[in-house]
């Protein structure tokens, strides 16, 4: 599974079935386009940490506002 596929899966899981998969695009903003609130974003952070085996700072998590930014962060930080 690619990083992109994994991120899409995690976003859908964090939104608990309240999001259509076709809305998940690189430019989609988690808050404004995908309906995340700050708590849901923290849920996504925890799911992402567990899925990728990473500890991600809350500041980095907040800075990644779009799906594309999230994927780029994970691509550059994921373990080999």
């Amino acid at each position: 599974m690619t990083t992109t596929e994994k991120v899409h899966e995690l976003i859908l899981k964090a939104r608990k079935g309240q999001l259509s998969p076709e809305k998940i695009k690189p430019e989609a903003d988690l808050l404004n386009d995908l309906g995340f609130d700050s708590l849901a974003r923290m849920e996504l952070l925890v799911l992402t940490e567990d899925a990728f085996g990473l500890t991600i700072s809350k500041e980095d998590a907040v800075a990644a506002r779009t799906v594309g930014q999230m994927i780029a962060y994970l691509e550059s930080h994921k373990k080999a």
Partner: protein
Amino acid sequence: MSSTVTIRFDLNGRERVLDTAPDRRVLDLLREDLGLTGTKEGCGSGECGACTILVDGESRLACLMLAAQLQGTQVTTVEGLELFSEGRAIQHAFVREGAVQCGFCTPGMELATLALLRREPRPTRERIREGLSGNLCRCTGYVKIVDAVERAATDIGGGERE
């Protein structure tokens, strides 16, 4: 028809100037006039803590405050929690420890936690229970919530968990 007053206050880092009835509940002002529905109405009579907000850094119950009391204050609701690094740590800890079930009490719990940890950065479990005693949860039995506050205290302080 009741008269209105103009109130000026800081809400989640942004200045607000509103014309409102002076006796309008802050809870209604936030939820209905400003659309900030993260602040919940539980009992509406100051018993449950679901509507906890921070006013000048102190936890207050929005159901018991009147709009005119906001004049010149700094208000933080759950929507503004992520403006603070401690707020982000608290939210992360609540999720990580599984302290959120139905989520209705969570906004109030998290704001009460922020006020507690600013007053007392490393509280014991007993002090956490005391600090959150005004916030009721009907789901969790509180153990996970206390775990989350402990984790948040550690994360904010940069220390090791015991």
